[in-house]
């Protein structure tokens, strides 16, 4: 049974279509990266997955339990870190942990202590006096210490410094090792690239691409940079090869499909340096977004 399953999940706010027929499956134990720029529908998706908003059409279920119709049962499996870390301003961090744990009904107290130390949370400080990043840490500690089967994280590292970002990655790795499922909404590509098994890219309320990083890379173009002795000569037209940028004596090429024809052509030319690399997630991501602007990715 899937940890998350959405079928034709659609949400309309007045005349705005925020989410348009999303189909999503996340297997138990998987770390799923949910990518998209601001306004793509990431938070809407999460609110539907948690049954906080009602789907206009379609359905969402967590571990086979419908999120809208039976949220309490579904939430027994879930811990959530909200994108905006609003907590109860008059409670201290320790009181917040106690409150959330009691309402949830379970907590791993030892692990909580470990996480408090790891994330350097000051347990006696009131939430009111915490910066955004520190409130985010309080949420993260509470969520991971619950050892919930499924962690739904909405841009959890916004506001964290690089040290804490590293602590976050460590904690995600531990959760994954224990077999917990993680749904990580983000627009920090390096983070998703570092921790996620599978990635979905959301644009305008639709899932435009999904797969493992290898799969996504395979479908996208390689980047080949060539430096010549002297001025860059004209290249013969080759299928799947386009010139992305041209300098005095260098070319940057985008190659989709086979590299061999290009290499054969280059063998005839005075090449002094050649680099080839797979596209980064950033390039895959930008590729999907640039297309909407009419620019060629």
């Amino acid at each position, binding site marked *: 049974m899937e940890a998350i399953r959405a079928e034709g999940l659609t949400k309309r706010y007045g005349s705005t279509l925020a989410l348009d027929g999303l189909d999503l499956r996340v297997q138990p134990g998987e770390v799923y990266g949910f990518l998209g720029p601001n306004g793509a529908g990431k938070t809407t998706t999460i609110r539907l997955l948690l049954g906080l908003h009602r789907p206009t059409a379609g359905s969402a279920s967590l571990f086979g339990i419908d999120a809208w119709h039976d949220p309490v049962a579904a*939430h027994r499996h879930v811990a959530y870190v909200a994108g905006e870390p609003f907590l109860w301003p008059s409670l201290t961090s320790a009181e917040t942990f106690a409150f959330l744990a009691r309402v949830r009904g379970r907590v791993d107290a030892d692990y909580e202590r470990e996480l408090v130390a790891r994330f350097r949370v000051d347990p006696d*400080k009131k939430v009111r006096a915490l910066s955004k990043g520190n409130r985010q840490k309080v949420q993260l500690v509470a969520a991971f210490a619950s050892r919930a089967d499924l962690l739904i994280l909405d841009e959890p590292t916004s506001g964290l410094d690089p040290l804490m970002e590293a602590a976050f990655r460590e904690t995600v790795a531990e959760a994954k090792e224990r077999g917990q499922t993680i749904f990580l909404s983000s627009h920090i590509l390096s983070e998703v690239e570092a921790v996620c098994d599978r990635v979905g890219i959301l644009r305008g309320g639709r899932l435009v691409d999904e797969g493992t990083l290898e799969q996504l890379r395979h479908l996208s173009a390689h980047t080949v940079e060539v430096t010549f002795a002297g001025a860059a000569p004209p290249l013969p037209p080759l299928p799947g090869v386009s010139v992305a940028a041209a300098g005095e004596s260098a070319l940057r090429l985008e190659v989709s499909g086979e590299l061999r024809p290009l290499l054969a052509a280059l063998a005839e030319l005075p090449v002094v340096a050649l680099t080839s690399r797979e596209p980064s997630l950033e390039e895959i991501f930008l590729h999907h977004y640039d297309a909407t602007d009419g620019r060629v990715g």
Partner: protein
Amino acid sequence: MAASGSAAIGRRAFHDGRVRTLSFAALFAFMAYVNVSGYEHSFPTLRDRLVFVHSFGDDASVRLFYGQPYDLLHVGGYVAWRVGGFGAIFAAAWGLLAAVRALRTEEDAGRWELLLAGAVRRRDAFLAVLAAIAGGWLLLWLGLWLGCVAGGLAVGGSAYFALAALTPALVFAGVGALVSQVAPTRRLALELGMVVLALAFLLRTVADTSSGAAWLRWATPLGWAEQLRAFADPRPLVLLLPLGVSAALLWAAGAIALRRDVGSGLIASHDRRAPRLRLLSSPTAQALRAERGSLIGWLVGVGAFAVIVGVLSTTFQVARLPPTIRRELARFGATLLTPSGIIGFYFLFFVLAISLFACAQVVAARREEAGQQLETLLSLPAGRRRWLAGRLALAVGGAVALALLAAVLSWAGARSQGADVSLPDMLGAGANCLPVTLLFLALSTLAFAAWPRATTGIAYGLVSVAFVWQLFGAALGAPTWLLGVSPFHHVGLVPAQDFKALAAAIMLALAAAALALAFALFARRDLTGE
């Protein structure tokens, strides 16, 4: 550049408070108009007026709200008393809310910091906020003045009266500005301001109701408004007091605002403490923990008022009146002349206060949703129906406690003066507060479920309009069926009158229906942020 920046801040502050300001202005205009036109209607002859002067006009318990009358034989003096005494309290509350909202609330939310990061000097930003408050005050003045003039009072006299009645707003805007500098949070600032307002009210109460304490009127801004004696014996020089004090408070607030760190207050906020783990076992327990302070405030306020009402209930001595006047008085409802009659009349104000408390609880629930704490709660295994039911249980529990306290303490107050009032009767008066309270609780909850962003306005608006309509609608000559729209119209003045069982049953049935609808709607709607 800087000038346009501070102008924008001023406009923004004015815009933020416009609904509240316009509501208060409309209320003042309505109260003034109704009382002007109602005077001729209620007291057509000199004889009627004399009877009134020697009965209610003399009664200490009536002065509790309306203050000291100076001339009840003419419509102007009557309006200055009826509207001015009551209105001064409203005006003070407006001034306090306006200043705290524009200064401390903005700073608490971090928006003030954002504004000051722009090309605006602190002094200019502060002055811009004061200008916005002054603009709002001018609207209140215009409303009150127009209400008087529309009813037929003299233009000049009305202008002076409106100025006099609204001087507490100026003083309490100063108080609000100062507590906004002292307190580090919105909540503490409001609490401090409310304490000052309660003290001012208490001083006026003592000055107006105890013999030999009239000099205390000089010690409270609410008393200064009385001392201006509009329409009776105007003393414009007294204006120097409120204007001077207001200016001094604002100057002090400004001086502090220029010196302290943005985001802090003179009182350091206690941001660290060892964990206190009581009342954290469920969302409802935590809500009780959060509302504890305000619940205690309500209990103290209602309790103090109940004691005062009880003690004053015996001040009206029918036996002292000449027999002819006693006969005339019967026309005005003789039940009001006994201690239980006066208590019964004042319990209408307890019904109002407890209904407002119930509304405040729904507004607090809404604030938990708007602040997105509810989103965090409902992502846990906590159901939304249960959360709402817990919040409502808290409201009902608080309302019952308030009603019980009002009953017991006003009984104790009356007994201390030897009045013949029985405890069971008074408990009945307390219970009599609850059907209306539950109805308004249910209607506020329905507003919360159906139009979450409008919760505050609808909740407080319904109660206020219904109450004002009950107090003054009759003076406008409105037909009975139209008066009956207000739930307050159907409250029997227990213990002097009988409990109106049918009306109570209908209100409870309506409340149940509204609650059922509210739960159904809330279960189906999206959580809604600010």
